[in-house]
Each structure stands twice: as structure tokens, then as C-alpha cells.
């Protein structure tokens, strides 16, 4: 029983991490129709920032806002050039551009931070384990579950319940009409990309305590986040939450039951899911013209 609870919590903490990363990718993909394969680089940069911030002795909780701001800044610079010119290009060109950038960033980070696995030294209050029915469980993962779903909630309020969120959604639905209302939609879209990059960074900072930081992690996280977004369905917040849970649980439990071929089983399950529901778990309502 205790073992099952621990595995469920493991899956939940992984889902929380996936959710944050996938939301960053999803807002850009569904709102701007832009595939950003460099999102994994934002994640890994955030992880490295957290590792070095925890080691520096500065107040530990500042690591997360710092990671957010640093990657948001990187996102803002990239948005200026070259992303902005590619919003209207084909998916193929977007994929090639951002894949190339992610390879460049991966190599720069390997150059700067080394090729070894860096595990952060966790701050005092997050170290250690708690006992659930006599089974040990890391405190940090509980923190991850809490913060992950809390941040996702904030994002939902921001996009779904504020005026700014309404402007973003309106810019997607009918850009010309929003422009005639006197709103600079180009700036709105830049803000979305910056927010997405920052989300990537903060999820990296959170994930460092669970997955550490090493070259190649950017790609692993990117693939899982992409799968999460697509399985959930484009443009639905509920869908992404649901599919983060599905992917998190599928990966965690296939690692428990089929340690050697865990990813084969999990990926196959997701491919089947995509076949059964090609538009995602929660299909967006399409306006029929």
C-alpha cells in the first residue's frame, strides 16, 4: 500500500514538472502556431541556473524567479531575431530553425557547464524524506507537486480570467479585429513567447532537484513536453493538464513494471492514444464556417 502511494506521488511530481514545461510549449504552439523545439534549451538553462544558485549561498527561493527572468530575457532576445520572422512560415521551416538553435544552445551549454551530471545541493528545508506508511518519500517532490500545480493555476487565471488573457486569445482568433481596436498584436505575441520561455526556465529550475542537469536532458524533456501538448490537444488548458497526468503516470508506472523497455511501452501507449483521438484528449471546439 505504502509502495503504491509512493509511486503515485512519484508520478504526480513528474506530471507537475511535465505540466509546467508543456504549458510553456503549448501557449506558443496553440496561440501562435509556432513550433519551438528550442524550448528544451530554456528548460536546461533554468536547471543550470538553479544548480549554481543553490551552490552560491544566496537565498534559495530566489533561484526560481531568477531562472524565470533569465530565460525570459533569452526568449525576448530570440523573439526579436530570428523567431519573429518565422511565425508566418511553414512548420517545416520553424522546426528546422528551432532545432538548429537548440543544437547550438546545447553545445554552448556543454561548453560552459561541462558534460558531467550536475545535481543541485538542495536547500535545508527541502532536504530529506518524509515517511508515508513507513515508505520514505523525498520532501522535494512534495514541494514540486505543490509549486507545479500552483504555478499552472496562476497561468490559467492569467490566460482565462484576466483582460490581458482575453486580448491574447482574441489576437489568436481574429488578429485584424484586435488591431482595429488599437492593440499592437505583435507586442502581445512577443509577450506570449517571453512568458513561454520564462515558464521553460522556471520548470527547469524546479526539475533540477529531481532530474539533475546534464547535456541531452534538454532533448528528453522537449520530446516529452511535445508529446504532452499534442496528446492533450491544442489550445485547451484542461487537455494539457489531463495529458500531463497521463504521460507522467504512464512513464512512471512503465518504469516500475517494464524497467528495460519503459519508454517503448509508454511511447506506444501515447501513439495509440493519438490514433484513437487524433485531435487530442480534449479536442478544441472548432468554429464551423
Amino acid at each position, binding site marked *: 500500500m505504502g509502495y503504491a502511494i509512493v509511486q503515485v506521488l512519484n508520478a504526480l511530481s513528474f506530471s507537475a514538472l511535465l505540466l509546467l514545461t508543456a504549458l510553456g510549449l503549448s501557449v506558443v504552439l496553440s496561440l501562435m502556431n509556432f513550433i519551438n523545439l528550442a524550448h528544451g534549451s530554456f528548460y536546461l538553462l533554468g536547471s543550470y541556473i538553479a544548480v549554481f544558485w543553490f551552490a552560491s549561498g544566496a537565498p534559495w527561493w530566489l533561484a526560481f524567479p531568477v531562472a524565470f527572468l533569465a530565460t525570459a530575457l533569452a526568449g525576448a532576445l530570440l523573439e526579436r531575431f530570428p523567431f519573429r520572422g518565422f511565425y508566418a512560415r511553414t512548420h517545416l521551416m520553424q522546426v528546422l530553425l528551432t532545432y538548429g538553435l537548440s543544437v547550438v544552445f546545447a*553545445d554552448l551549454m556543454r561548453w560552459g557547464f561541462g558534460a558531467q551530471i550536475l545535481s543541485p545541493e538542495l536547500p535545508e528545508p527541502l532536504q530529506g524524506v518524509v515517511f508515508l506508511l513507513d515508505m520514505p518519500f523525498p520532501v522535494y517532490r512534495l514541494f514540486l507537486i505543490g509549486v507545479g500545480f500552483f504555478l499552472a493555476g496562476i497561468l490559467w487565471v492569467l490566460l482565462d480570467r484576466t483582460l490581458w488573457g482575453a486580448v491574447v486569445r482574441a489576437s489568436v482568433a481574429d488578429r485584424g479585429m484586435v488591431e482595429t481596436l488599437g492593440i499592437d498584436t505583435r507586442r502581445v505575441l512577443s509577450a506570449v513567447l517571453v512568458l513561454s520561455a520564462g515558464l521553460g526556465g522556471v520548470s527547469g529550475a524546479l526539475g533540477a532537484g529531481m532530474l539533475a542537469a546534464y547535456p541531452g536532458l534538454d532533448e528528453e524533456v522537449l520530446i516529452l513536453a511535445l508529446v504532452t501538448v499534442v496528446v492533450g490537444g491544442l489550445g485547451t488548458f484542461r487537455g494539457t493538464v489531463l495529458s500531463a497526468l497521463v504521460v507522467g503516470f504512464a512513464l512512471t508506472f512503465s518504469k516500475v513494471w517494464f524497467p528495460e523497455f519503459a519508454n517503448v511501452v509508454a511511447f506506444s501507449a501515447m501513439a495509440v492514444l493519438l490514433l484513437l483521438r487524433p485531435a487530442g484528449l480534449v479536442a478544441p471546439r472548432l468554429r464551423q464556417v
Partner: protein
Amino acid sequence: MVAVAGLSAAALLAGEFHLRFLAEILIIGTAVMSLDLLVGFGGLVSLGHAALFGAAAYAAAVAAQHLGGNLLFILGTGIAMGAAVAALMGAVIVRTSSLFLLILTLLLGQIVWEIVFHWRDVTGGADGLRGLPPLSFGPWVLSSARPLFLLAGLLALAALWLAHSFVDAPLGRALIGSREQPIRMSALGYSIPRIRFLTMLVAGAIAGAAGALYPFVNLYIGPQSVHWTLSATMIIMLVIGGVGSLWGAFLGSAVYLAIQTYISAYTDRWQLFVGLIFVLTVLLLPNGLAGGLRRLASRMRRRRAQQA
């Protein structure tokens, strides 16, 4: 004609190292050209093409280890494996498009990679397979560079001819139609899933034939040949050469592999440059070298016509 002349000149003049390198270019180029059938003519951007190529390469290598390197047998194994994986992938992707197609092919490709990477008893896992027997054709043993290069050249020409006749055949025309006007094509009674599935089979068979020869160039095959990184690399080779031009695929793979080989000889940071190649290509050369050359040719022709 030019291609045949170039191939025979290279066979006579180039040294051992360069012949193997050219053979690799021709083999990868053949696989890239089969991808062009999907991307350039069907509008189906696949991020899993390396899985077809790599699975065939592994099948050929394993078959050669156990049953010897008879050329026709090895080619048959590769083609069968490439077509089989393509059939699987085709069955899955025929009804999807754009983004979902991209993710599904990526997922399926990574499933193949995971199997290759973890099935150590057969595939050697991360180490790959070494110590393969050389290819043989009747009494001849094709182990030195020159026959291997000629073999790769023959394969490339045969594949190019096959791809050209596929595109000119009714099926190829229907494929282009399904890319341009899917609704109109369905209304005319064409089954778009069927067209796409058959195209996948042809592309898989060509990629499989190329994959079958690949392990024998360097007598080694590793899991990198199945990874989606190679799929992305194949797409960039295609874009460098020019999407939809078929022969441009060989140009693209030659340019890419040459840059990669010479840069990695000079610096450890060659991956940085590989990434830059991607970025610069889409920024400066989105139509590829073949498109640029064709524009140049038509401009010269026009100038000559004005002078006359």
C-alpha cells in the same frame, strides 16, 4: 549522363578514404531522396525517417552476421525491413497531417530507437555492431573501397530512376494532387490514405535498400543511425539540396557531410556549427541549392534569348 561520368571519374581518381566517404554520401543521399518523395511531393514532413533507414541497416547487419554477406540477400533483407517499418508507420500516419504527423513520426521513430538501444543481445546496445563480414556477390568479395563505391553509385542511380518514374506515374501525380487539393482529390474518388500509404512503402523500400548497404561502408552500425537527430539531419540535407528536386538530395547530403567532416577535423565544437548550418540554411537558402541553381540557369537562358 553527367552523373555516370562523374561516378566513373571518381572511381578512377579518388583514394581509399575519399571513396568510402563518397559512398557514404551516395547512400545517405539515397535515403534523403526517398524522404523527398514524402516531403517534397506528398507534403508529409516526417521526423522518423531515420527509423526506416536505421532499422534496415540493423536488419542487414544482423542478417550478415548470422548468414553471411550475400549482396542480394542483404539488399532484400534491408528492403523488406524498410518497407515493413514504413508500412507500420504508414498505417499510423495516413489520416493525420502537419503537426500531428510530425509528432507521431517522431514518437514511432523513437520507439524503434529505444528498441535498438535496449535490445543489447541482438543490436549491441549503445556500442552498436562491429566485425561484420564483407559483402559478396557470387565469387567476388566487395570489401575494398572501390567496389563499395560503385555499388553505392549503382544504388543511387537505380533509386533516382525509380523515384523519377514513381513521380511521373499516375500514383505520383495523385500524390501531388493530394498535397495541393486534398478535398478535390477525395471528391474525384481518390483515397488519400491509400496514396499516402503506398508512397510510404516506396520511400521505405528505397530507404531500406540504402540502409542495407550503410553498415558495410565502415563495417560498423551504431544506434545514432536510428535516432531522430538523423531524421532532422536528413531533412536539413533535403532543404540544403532543395525540396522536391530529387537529385538535390545528393547535393544536400554531399554539402552537409563535407562541412561536418571537415569542421569536426578542426574543432571539438563541431555540433555548434552543425546547428548553425541549420539556422543559416533556413535564413539564407530556404529554397535550397537546387532551387538557386535552377533560377540561375533560367536567368542565363533568358539573357541569352535577349541577346539573340
